């Protein structure tokens, strides 16, 4: 997977590049907005990581320019501006996700993975299948190895999100954002409690746990 990092802070870009390369991604770096737009036009990228405040052309302008030209590559905004209205501006400009600096690297990887996957799912699926876990999106039923699992509506949504991002790390913040649609910062482990509930339902009585805890990052659903 190819990632374009548009970021003027060279040290931050370097750290990001090393980290992403380590995670198995191919990275290219553009030091300012203009260079970023040119690089994005020339190369085929799966995800763009765009800093909001840059010389020559700021992140919002970069994304607006690319979207105007019909480029639909998923964009992750990185910004020191973490206020809610900043987030709204970024998402309105056409970004797909928003990460506030300073961020945990695990969070960045998780979000990049989620974005890259999102692009592949074209057709509207009616069932999701991860290993022996099967989800019927119309009948709202879940089976593991043929055995029906009874889930509360929110647990269903939580599992659906995990299944759609099977094999990827998903952070607590992402879950709160995507499943509950809140962006606040819970001081306690409230998401962990929900996950552990879900885990007890889908893994209990089975030899192999599917819902994994990823240290320092969040969770991952493995087939």
């Amino acid at each position: 997977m190819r990632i374009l990092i548009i970021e003027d802070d060279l040290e931050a870009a370097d750290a990001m590049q090393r980290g992403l390369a380590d995670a198995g991604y191919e990275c290219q770096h553009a030091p300012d907005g203009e260079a970023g737009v040119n690089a994005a036009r020339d190369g085929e990228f799966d995800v763009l990581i765009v800093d909001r405040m840059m010389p020559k052309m700021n992140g919002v302008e970069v994304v607006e320019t690319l979207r105007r030209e019909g480029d639909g590559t998923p964009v992750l905004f990185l910004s020191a501006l973490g206020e809610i209205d900043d987030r709204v501006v970024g998402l309105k400009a056409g970004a797909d996700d928003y990460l506030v600096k300073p961020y945990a690297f695990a969070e960045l990887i998780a979000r990049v993975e989620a974005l890259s996957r999102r692009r592949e799912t074209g057709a509207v699926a009616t069932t999701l299948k991860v290993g022996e876990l099967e989800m019927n999106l119309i009948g709202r039923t879940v089976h593991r190895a043929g055995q029906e699992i009874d889930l509360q509506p929110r647990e269903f949504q939580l599992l659906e999100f995990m299944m759609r991002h099977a094999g990827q790390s998903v952070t607590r913040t992402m879950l709160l954002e995507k499943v509950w649609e809140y962006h606040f910062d819970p001081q306690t482990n409230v998401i962990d409690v929900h996950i552990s509930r879900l885990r007890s339902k889908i893994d209990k009585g089975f030899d192999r746990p599917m819902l994994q805890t990823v240290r320092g990052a969040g969770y991952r659903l493995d087939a």
Partner: protein
Amino acid sequence: MRLPRLLRTTPFRLTLLFLALFAAAAAAFLGYIYIATAGEVNRRADKEISREMESLQAAYRLGGPDALNQTLVERSVGERPFLYLLMTADGKRLSGSIEESPVADFEGHDEKWTTFTVTETDLDGAEIKRPARGYQVRLDGGEILFVGADVGESESYVMKIVRALWGAGALVIVLGLAGGVLISRNVSRSMSGLAEVVNAVRGGDLKARAQVRGTRDEYDELAEGLNDMLDRIERLMGGLRHAGDAIAHDLRSPLTRLRARVEVALIEAESGKGDPLKALEQALEDTDGVLKTFNAVLAIARLQAAGSAPDPTVFDAADLANDMAELYEVMCEDKGQTFDSEITPGLAIKANREFMAQALANILDNAIKYTPEGGAVMLRLRRRSSGDIEFSVTDNGPGVPEADRPRVVERFVRLERSRNQPGAGLGLSLVSAVAAAHGGRIELAEGAGEYDGRGPGLRVAFIIPPLG
């Protein structure tokens, strides 16, 4: 010296401008009156002189120079106000009541009107000069006849009126100037009060306030607006300073700890002792803690500084309450507590959904954190009789002593008991800041009371005004 300063004030300049306009108008008006009246006096004199001239010419045509002479002599004696002079063709005086014609260069003019001055000697021997009009004609036989009339009396009457008008104009200008000075002084006193405040603030005195005189005029309004603005700025500055102090104070210790840990880990790693990975993990955790504190302090400071929440939207408070109930119910169960909720549906509020969620989450977090196992937490949403919307979370934990309640909403205040619990003491401060930013407040009270051997509990009410 006050006057030069006064001269620079806008009201005084306006006064001067209006006076100048008025004076110009008055001058034009006086000029018109003068021309109209003085002209009328001359016209009337001219008409009478013409009539007299005609009757004299008639006498001349009937009886020749002798008859004219006779008539002149007769008419000079009477009370008639005319002056006569009959001269030969070459300008020699024949007869009449004056010695010399005021029409000096007679040559070439057969007829001529003139204005001249009559000099008389009154009873006291003083000379009196009076304006007069005259008309000179060459008669058919070549003789020259001059008829004049004294217009002094009428003219002096006109001049009296004109002088009176000038006097009135001058009086108006003087009074106008005096009024302008008074008004300007009054206005500039009000303005200089405001200017003093502005200068004081510019000089760094944020406590300076303009005096509101209670006259409810535009200056009072301006002063009130200025004071409100200064209150806001002072609060903002205070908030920022406090945030800076708080950040410095509260982040210094975790940062020091972090630094020490990293340093020790380095030393240990060099000597082959210790587990550098574990130290790094610990450092990462510490960093996250510092960032969380930092974010919370920033959020509080920004909310307090802004005075209002960004991006408010209208939504049903019950949706939010239900979301939070659903989110936190499992936490209660996990801790062996019972969770209950009473949520009144259909209460619309205009608020920032994220901040509201954060506030409720903080309250619920606190309740669950401090209530022991087997306790109970209750979330309520209702409309108060005052119309305000109230979210409340009641627990039956240890509660907060009444004396400490006002303190716990302050930043970084942690009660002795909670020292061993995680947290920075920012939760309720943020809740309070969110409430204030929505025009609301929080109220802390005792919970349901002591039962089952547990504490009195705490009831945290988050109150915001209803929609509209």
